[in-house]
């Protein structure tokens, strides 16, 4: 496409290489036809959290938390207070009799925790001089408590009073916390998942370690709730385990890239880099689990306990965040600076020779022959579907760390290039503007 500009052979090659997944500029299904760049951060933006229907907060390595209006792109608040990078950001809904108010909890490397009011920009509570920096936060709304995980696990009430804490023996610390039924929480640390039970009595709260799940062979990278009965975890070497949420037993154990890392790796790269099969991110809608494995995407059905669709090379580099928009549409973002929209489509026809193209999609063009035999195993799965690229969003010049989807087709992405980009449906925006125009005309009495 850009051969005429580049003019040199090797550059041309690079274009071809990356164009394996380039769907071109014609993207009729891509509705994000308007964008707005939101500037304000001075360093990598890592976290995005939705506050309500029209606001979101972003935080990053500059220690700033910014509150944005996603409808107008306006920066509403600038929450300053942390001296170092933010390590965790979450919303905290404070329900009183009169109203419920959404607050923000931030944790930072400066070993402090803060509670913010995004409406006023005030720091409501703050705790500093923690023993270690907090890496993850979990809010238990029905108990009006929140947990912070790091080298130690602490339980706080809404007034930022420490309720109890549990020293952690692992040197890596807790980096993910999820809530499980029966007042349990699961904390992922290194290769283990530890289940704690929170006992709440009238005046005291205590944590007891219930179980340790040590089935992963490598560091756990992702831990999510799938539904009320299940939770899932993924490890650095591509192990995907589905757990029972109540009795903590293994429901399914998948080695997503296991076959290929055995056979195809030495042919292609010499050695498969673990990062290529590391499960970076998991997300679920209760029925499907979307796993980001290296630069690929795998859709796993909880019901059939099998991979429904996958794309081994979905991005040019690691996928950092994913989202299931619906049962058939998903979004992924990656270190390569692009967001891609995917659709799970039925295979055209099982007998069609076009399946060669499907193989081609599995790996790089030239290596499809070698990659062919092992991937047949995957093909054995009867109802395998296709993961089709229907659009991509290009705008960031750095890795896209995270995105948040709002209703009415608007999407906020944050990136290592210090920017946030607000993607919108251009049609809808122009309609809204027309509405506003006529409203203003009416107000001015000129209509």
């Amino acid at each position, binding site marked *: *496409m*850009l051969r*005429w*500009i*580049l003019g040199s052979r090797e*550059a041309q090659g690079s*274009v071809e290489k990356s164009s394996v997944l380039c769907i*071109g*500029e*014609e*993207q*009729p299904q*891509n509705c994000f*036809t*308007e*964008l*707005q*760049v*939101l*500037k304000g951060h001075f360093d990598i933006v890592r976290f995005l959290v939705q506050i309500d229907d029209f606001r979101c907060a972003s935080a990053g390595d500059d220690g700033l938390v910014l509150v944005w209006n996603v409808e*107008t*792109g*306006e*920066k509403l608040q600038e929450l300053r207070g942390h001296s170092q990078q933010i390590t965790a950001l979450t919303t905290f809904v404070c329900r009183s009799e009169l109203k419920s108010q959404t607050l923000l909890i931030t944790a930072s490397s400066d070993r402090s925790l803060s509670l913010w009011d995004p409406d006023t920009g005030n720091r409501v509570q703050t705790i500093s001089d923690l023993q270690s920096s907090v890496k993850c936060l979990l809010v238990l709304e029905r108990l009006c408590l929140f947990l912070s995980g790091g080298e130690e696990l602490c339980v706080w009430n809404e007034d930022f009073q420490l309720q109890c804490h549990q020293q952690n023996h692992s040197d890596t610390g807790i980096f993910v916390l999820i809530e499980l039924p029966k007042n349990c929480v699961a904390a992922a640390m290194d290769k283990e998942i530890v289940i704690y039970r929170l006992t709440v009595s009238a005046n005291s709260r205590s944590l007891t370690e219930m179980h340790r799940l040590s089935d992963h062979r490598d560091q756990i990278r992702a831990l999510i709730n799938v539904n009320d009965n299940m939770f899932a975890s993924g490890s650095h070497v591509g192990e995907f385990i589905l757990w029972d949420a109540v009795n903590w037993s293994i429901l399914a154990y998948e080695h997503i890239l296991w076959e290929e890392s055995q056979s195809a790796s030495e042919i292609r790269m010499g050695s498969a880099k673990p990062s290529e099969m590391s499960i970076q991110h998991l997300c679920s809608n209760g029925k499907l689990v979307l796993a980001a494995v290296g630069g690929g995407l795998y859709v796993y059905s909880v019901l059939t306990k099998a991979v429904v669709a996958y794309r081994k090379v979905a991005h040019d580099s690691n996928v950092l965040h994913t989202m299931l928009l619906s049962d058939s549409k998903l979004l992924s973002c990656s270190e390569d600076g692009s967001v891609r929209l995917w659709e799970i489509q039925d295979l055209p026809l099982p007998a069609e020779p076009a399946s060669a193209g499907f193989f081609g999609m599995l790996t790089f063009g030239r290596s499809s022959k070698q990659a062919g035999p092992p991937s047949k195993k995957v093909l054995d799965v009867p109802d395998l579907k296709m993961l089709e690229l229907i*659009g991509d969003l*290009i*705008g*960031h*010049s750095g890795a896209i760390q995270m995105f948040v989807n709002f209703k009415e087709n608007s999407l906020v992405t944050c990136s290592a*290039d210090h*920017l946030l*980009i607000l993607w*919108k449906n*251009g049609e809808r*925006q*122009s*309609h809204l*503007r*027309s*509405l*506003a*125009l*006529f409203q*203003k*005309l009416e107000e001015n009495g000129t*209509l």
Partner: protein
Amino acid sequence: MIGSPDVVAFTKEDDYGQPNPEPWPALPEEFSIPLYPPADSNPWAKTSYAKFTKDFILISEFSEQVGPQPLLTIPDEPKVCGTFDLNYFSLRIMSVDYQASFVGHPPGSGYPRLSFVEDSRVVLGDSKEGAFAYVHHLTLYDLEARGFVRPFCMAYVSADERKIMLQFQELSLRFSQASECLKAGNRRAFAKELQRKLQDLEYTHSVLQQEEGLQREAAPQTRYSAHAVEKANELANVEKSIYEHRDLLKQITSYHRRPRRDPHAATCHKCMSECLAECEDLLEKFSKLAGPLGCTGKKVSGDETDGEAGEDELEDEEGLRRRPSYTPQLIRAKSAKCFDKRLKTLQELCDETFYEASIELLKETEKSFRGDLCYLYTCRLDTALRRKQRLTNFLFEEETCNDSNEDEVIIRPICPVNHSVESYTVLKPPHIVLAPEPLEDTPEPFSETSHTLESELGLGESHLESSPSDQTLETQDSSEETKGSYSSGTSRNKPQHNLDTVKYDARDSDFTPDHERESSSEDMETTVGDDEGVNGDHTPVSLLEPDAECEETPVEVCESDMLLPIDTTCCMAQDGFIYEDLPVPTESHHNTRAQPPQTLVVNQEPQALHVLQDHYTIGSPSKSPGLELPVAQHADTVSRVSVEDGSDCTMSASTGSDRTLSPIGYGGVVTLRQKKKAGQGALRFVRQYPFAMQALWCLLSGRTLVVFGEDEGRVRKLVAALALFVPCPGKCAERVQAWVSGPFSLTDIYRWKLIGLQRASSPVGSSTLYSLSRYSRYISILDIDQKTLLCPPYRGHLLSNMADHRTYIRRGSTYFLHLQSMLCRLAAKAFLLTFTHHLHLPVSSKEGPEVVLGRRHCFLQEQLGLGEEDSQILLYLSQLITQYYLQNPTESPTVSPCFSFKYITSVLYKI
């Protein structure tokens, strides 16, 4: 007076042949017929026999010592008037002054009267000298002058009589302003002078009284000696003088209460009231003396007690009066006015600040009337029409700086003391003949106010009546009425009247009511009638009606009638004008021509809109043949003239290094000159590249165009040329970046709509390439080294008129104007699209969004006749208009603009 040989009757040669000149046509004459007989093809030839090169303003006075003499010219350079004999011309213009007819003591009144003379306005010409002038006579008060008045006149001298005739109203307006300013200053100065004089007189009076007292004491028996009689006479004289001066002071104070019949007499109310208060203050102060003095006066040299009392009072007064640092002087026995006495200069007559302000005003006037009549008209027309399209002007027009700057400021009563901010009266500029606004004839709201005003005025008048000056005033009135006429030939009178009525109408609807306007508006008809009487022109007033009505008919009708002819003529003239002017790029010219660019172009704008509004089916552009700029035909004529020029502009290989040529993108405001140059570049581009249309489409539909090349000069030049097509380029072309040498980011793409990009082979270059390929979906890339264009395919025909590489247009400025007209039409369509309610919102609640979408689609396709790609242009422009309209000027910086795009595959165009 009118028949005086100095006044040239303003009749056209052809008018002589017509015994019964038909009533003033609905269409202003100069638009309907060729300006001059065809033989006289060069309109500039006419001015050549005048002895001066440029129009100028001449201020002369009728000195009581030496007769008419020129005082100064504006601009104040000797070369302005060349060999033109100012003395002689002053004589002429002063000799038609018939305002200062009445001075001195009126019969039946004991005191000298100040004549309150309204200014008179005369147009006269000297065909032999080739000079024509608008002459504005005014009188200033001078205590030392004969009859206390000094006649002055300000004249706008031009070689083009039509210019003066047609600009009469505005000239009159501006000169009135200057005159008002001068007069206001003069009244101040006069009051001050009177005050001094009174002080002097009182001082003298007291000294004389003392002397007399001493004398009486010393030798009471010599009471009736010659010396004593002389003294007594002297004293009586001084007393009389005091009365006279006091009366003068009263008169000058009552100045403001007089009904003014001068329609242009708009003064700063604050100044006026200040001056009034000052005068009244003085009056009060001096009337305090009236009692004792009156006593002494009655009893002739009075007895001592009275005299003493008077002295006491005087001393008290003097104590009070210590504040003004004026020491009264003894006035010696009055000597007759001597001719070696130095008369006050104009500066001395008027307060310094007021003088400066009026000179400034006149300078401004001179500046604003520079240039040919045609040029002035087109400018005026342009601004008038542009004002109607405020909402879309930002797209392609130069931003008009400030509305107030445009023309209200001209009419705003000037106040040298800077009161004008508060006492701001928005007056409509004279409509002259160009684009008559629909005059709202709403007498209702007015009559009410007028009622109260009337009663107020009545009070004022009764007050006046009590003063002995009322009689004079009345006679004054009648004399003024005769003076109100315009000294022009019989047949020329009618248009004049017509203008008059229009002007008055405008004034009626727009003046803020002040206590003077009442009477003036009342007098309107009578003035006209008087004119008749004076000129012996028996045109009934009713004859004027149709014209006035015509002026008042809705804009559309008048405009459409008028604009069609003006379009072409103006463009031609303008072109010629530009052409003529190019070789002499003087600074001043540069300034004055800062506005013209859009002029010619914009005058099509409302037209197009009008068509849009009326028929609603603009589908085929050929629907409005009058609007079509006769490109080919026009270009043909021009191309013959400028073959060398054209070849130069089309062939000249871009040498590159001259980067001074295109300062676009440096943050400076793009001047007209640069735009014209850019027009040449654009023309060259259009002729050179077969895919120019596609490139223009990209720019107009909001897709960022990257001009990619190695040579900075070429890239810059091309960017400057293409910048003409960037909608909403911003005041300083913020949306255009002429030269970028590194990789760019997404923000750059949507901040700049046109980017010049360096092609380099260094590592920087490769990252540039990377960003080009990465963002290729948002941009179009014009490679000027390989002469390729990568952009979405465009197959529309909307731009074919704009980017026809076989165009006959040869000259850059012509192309620029052509372009402007096309862009204006686009803007008008976009305006229509934006503000047509049912194209965006459902008409009924049953309608879904897809119905509205369909309707919009239908509108674009069927009614505007636009294809998919052409629609994109309009949608983009419409979006810009919407955003512009919604934009809140206060909060804009916090929110970054939106960037819309389409996912369309690009194609590579090659030469």
